[in-house]
Each structure stands twice: as structure tokens, then as C-alpha cells.
């Protein structure tokens, strides 16, 4: 797929529970990611970053506001068969759960090939070629495809999950903590792959992480979230060196301290 596409959230928020026990995961925010973006979303656990991305891809209902894809509400897309396929072809999401990211009753090949079959109608050798191509990018052995999810490591599963999202050549990719479960040595490799893939294929990226170094490596623009709100956003370099919000400074300080400790 080619061409510019944009995914927008206008004043979207997510509140759980009833009036008395309401918990606000995300306060009303505006957020856009398009096929030219390279956005990093950082913040500690519970800041709402996962919920924000899940709302954008339609995995989570919005309590207020609306999410639009190319100016049309995604609810309308998801309701029709054709619309759903269009939307999912263009926008893909990889989550943070490594233990249940694959159906334990199906082989990895089955799971990775499903989006190709459903969204692109691609099967047989054509599909197999594409799958192997993406696997090699992610430094995965295609022989693993015949295994079941329980038979490979968590880190490998995470990379297979990435492969599953990338096989359909999405225009926008949203990643939620996808490298957090990987070994440090593998993290770097995967981050490189994602960065290269984004630049070569012109894919828009929204990358959620609680690790600043990984995010700043990939992102041109940084968004900092704290307790459901976006407290700061701007160019990566600027946010890193001239944070305007005290929370950002705290986050940076913690990260710097960690780096110094690691360097000793």
C-alpha cells in the first residue's frame, strides 16, 4: 500500500467503571499518527500509554471523543467487512503480552499467515515467500514456523508477533512495549530492524515504551504521558535536552542515573 494515511484521536479519553468507582485511564487527549510519523510515547506504568494506543486501533472503546482514519470514524470501518479489511490492512498493532500473544492450539506459521490470507488474500508460495522475507529481517529462523507458541522463547514470540504485523505491509504500525521483554542483546537488533523497516518502507510508527533510550533511538517526536495526560510533546532532541515539564525532567534524570550505573 502506498499513499499518505492518518489516524487521529480527537479528545479521546477512557474511563473504566461506574460513576462511583470510576477510574480514568486516559484523560481527553488529541493524538495523531500518520504514515510519515515516528512518534515515541514514554511514561511509567499506568500512565495510560497502552490504553491510548489500543483506543487508536479500535481494541478499546473510547469513552469520549472519536478516533478517525483518514477523517472517517473507525467505528464505521470496523462495522462493515470491507471497511474492517481496509482499516486493518493499513493500521497494525503489536501488544506487550508475550505469554498469550499466540493461540496455543495453532502453529506459528498458521498465526503469522492468517493476516496475509484474510487481509490480502495471499496464500501458498506467495504468502510463504513474504513470511520468510519478514522473518529474515527480524533474524528469525523460518524453520521455527512449524512450532507451537509454547515451544519458543518469549523473546522469539515477540519477534514473531512483529512479523505477523509486518507481513501485510501496513502504512502505520503501533508498538506497545515490544522490546521490553527481549534480551538486551536482541533489543538493539530488533530496534534497528524496526527503524530500518520504517525508513525503507515509509511506514508511520508510534512506539510505546517505558525505556527512554529505545524510544529516542526510533522517534523523531516524543510524547510524555503521566497519569493519563500528555504532559509534554515535541521533537526528540528538544524534549531530551530542554524538558519543559517537571515530570519529564524526573524521567530523564532517572534514565540518566540508570545509564551511569550501567556504565560503571
Amino acid at each position, binding site marked *: 500500500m502506498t499513499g499518505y494515511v492518518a489516524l487521529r484521536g480527537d479528545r479521546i479519553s477512557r474511563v473504566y467503571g*461506574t460513576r462511583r468507582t470510576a477510574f480514568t485511564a486516559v484523560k481527553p487527549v488529541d493524538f495523531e499518527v500518520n504514515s510519515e510519523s515516528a512518534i515515541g510515547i514514554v511514561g511509567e506504568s499506568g500512565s495510560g500509554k497502552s490504553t491510548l494506543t489500543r483506543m487508536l*486501533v*479500535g*481494541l478499546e472503546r473510547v469513552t469520549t471523543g472519536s478516533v478517525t482514519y483518514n477523517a472517517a470514524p473507525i467505528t464505521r470501518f470496523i462495522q462493515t*467487512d470491507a471497511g*474492517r*479489511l481496509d482499516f*486493518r*490492512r493499513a493500521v*497494525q*498493532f503489536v*501488544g506487550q*503480552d508475550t*505469554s*498469550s*500473544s*499466540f*493461540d*496455543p*492450539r495453532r502453529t506459528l506459521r498458521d*498465526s503469522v499467515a*492468517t*493476516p496475509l490470507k*484474510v*487481509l490480502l488474500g495471499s496464500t501458498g508460495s506467495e504468502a510463504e515467500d513474504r513470511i520468510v522475507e519478514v522473518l529474515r529481517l527480524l533474524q528469525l529462523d523460518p524453520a521455527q514456523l512449524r512450532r*507451537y*507458541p*509454547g*515451544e519458543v522463547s518469549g523473546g522469539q514470540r515477540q519477534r514473531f*508477533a512483529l512479523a*505477523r*504485523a509486518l507481513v501485510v505491509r501496513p502504512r502505520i504500525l503501533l508498538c506497545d512495549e515490544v522490546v521490553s521483554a527481549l534480551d538486551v542483546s536482541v533489543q538493539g537488533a530488533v530496534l534497528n530492524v524496526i527503524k530500518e523497516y520504517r525508513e525503507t518502507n515509509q511506514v508511520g510508527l508510534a512506539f510505546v515504551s517505558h525505556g527512554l533510550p529505545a524510544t529516542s533511538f526510533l522517534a523523531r517526536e516524543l510524547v510524555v504521558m503521566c497519569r493519563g495526560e500528555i504532559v509534554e510533546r515535541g521533537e526528540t532532541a528538544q524534549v531530551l535536552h530542554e524538558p519543559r515539564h517537571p515530570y519529564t525532567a524526573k524521567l530523564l534524570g532517572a534514565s540518566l542515573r540508570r545509564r551511569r550505573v550501567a556504565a560503571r
Partner: protein
Amino acid sequence: MLVTTRIRRWVPFIPLAVLVLLALIGPFVVPFQPERVAGAAARPPGDGFLFGTDSTGMDVFSRTIVAARINLLMALLVTLAATAFGVPLGMVIGMNEARRGPLGWFGRAGTRVVDLSDAVPALIVGVVVVGLFGASMASLTVALAILLMPNQIRLTRVEVLKVRHDAYLDAARMAGLSNGRIMVRHVLPNSVRPALENASFVFGLSIIVSASLGFLGLGLRPPTPEWGVMIASGVSDVMLGRWWTALFPALALCVAVASASAAGAAITRLSRSTARR
């Protein structure tokens, strides 16, 4: 995998398969007509009558084999109905339980009903149904299916609650699958196991209830061969020293129920070994 291990997996199903086979072809292969006098009355086993003859001269062996039909048929219908309705209901209740709105309420109310149904004994339901509607296969099947369905619902619901939050469901949505297809393709196979295991219990219980009703004289009328009915008339024979008319149907009943249990245990073992969690 070794061939022998593969074969051994299916061995526990053999008794049940043989039983079903007998139920199907029985009437065509038995040596004597089950509802006609075949020889002298009250002959012990031997002399061409494998299980002897009863007090009216009918061949016990033929009647025992043919009687399998009735009990097994009802058990099969009840099990199919309870499972085919119970599992989808359990899935719907489980998937929608926490939601607000009418579907969520329906889910929670459903659970209460299921809990209540546990205390009701199946046989009494059978007795009451026969009392109110007469001994028809249809009303008995429906009544038993309704009584035993809540357990299938509850078992499925518990599994669905576990599966509901698994990330591969999200991945399936990302792959463009509709909610319906996701339920069938991912939720169902991962939550149906306990209901399948319980299905063998439902099967065995249905056999017992239908035979018990026959025994109590509330089922089908003689001379239709039915294990319970045969046992009932066999009791007085036992006191006269003629043990064969009651023993063989009783044995057949035990074997049938045991086969169902064995198959159920095998299903449990099988699905445990293929679950890759």
C-alpha cells in the same frame, strides 16, 4: 511418535464404539427376534441361548443387544442437545459478563440459574416429566437436556472467562477477522475442553436415568426390550433362582456407563496432552 503410542491413545474409545455399533446393527444381527418367543421359557444359558431365555421364552441375549438402541439413542440426543446449546450459551455469557447493558445482565442472571440447577436430581426430573407428559422419548430428552445443559454452560463460561483477555484475540482482530469468526476460531477451541469432558458424564447419566425410569415402570412398556424394564422383571426371577434374566441387562448397563466414563477419561487425557499452554 511411536505408532503404538498413537494407537494406544484411541483404545479407551473402543468399548463405546463397539456399543454404538451394536446399537446400530444389533437388530439385524441378533439370532432371535427380540419381541417374539424364541424357545422354552426360563431356560438357563446354553443350548443355543447365550444368555438363556426369560419367563416368556424370549431370548435374553437378543433382547439385551437390541435394548442398547433405546438407551444409547436417548443418551446421545441428550448429550448432543446439552452440549450443542450449552457451549455456545456459555461462550456468550462468558464473553459478555462484565459488560454493562442488557447482555451483561443476561450473563450474570444466567450464572445464578445454573447454580440453582445443581441441586436437582436428574431422576426426579424424569419422574415428574413422565408424570406430567407421559413416557415419550421427546419430552424426556428435552427435559434431561434442559436439566443437564446448565453444567455445560457453566464449564464453558469458566474457560471463556480465562480466555477472554488473551492477546491472541487482539491479534485476530488485527488480522481482520470478524467477532463471530474469532469466537469460532479462537474462543471455542480454547474453551470447549471441560464441556467435552463433561459430555461423557452427561451421556452416562442419561443412560442411567432412562434405564431407571424403565425399571420403575415409568418408561416404555414391555415387550419392548429396554435394560431397565428387563431388570425389573428379572428381580422376581432372581428370587426363583433364575439369575440370568436380570444379570445380563444389568451387566450391559454397567458396561455401557463404564464405556462412557472411559471415553470421557480418555478425552481428558488427550486434550491435556495437546494443550500447549
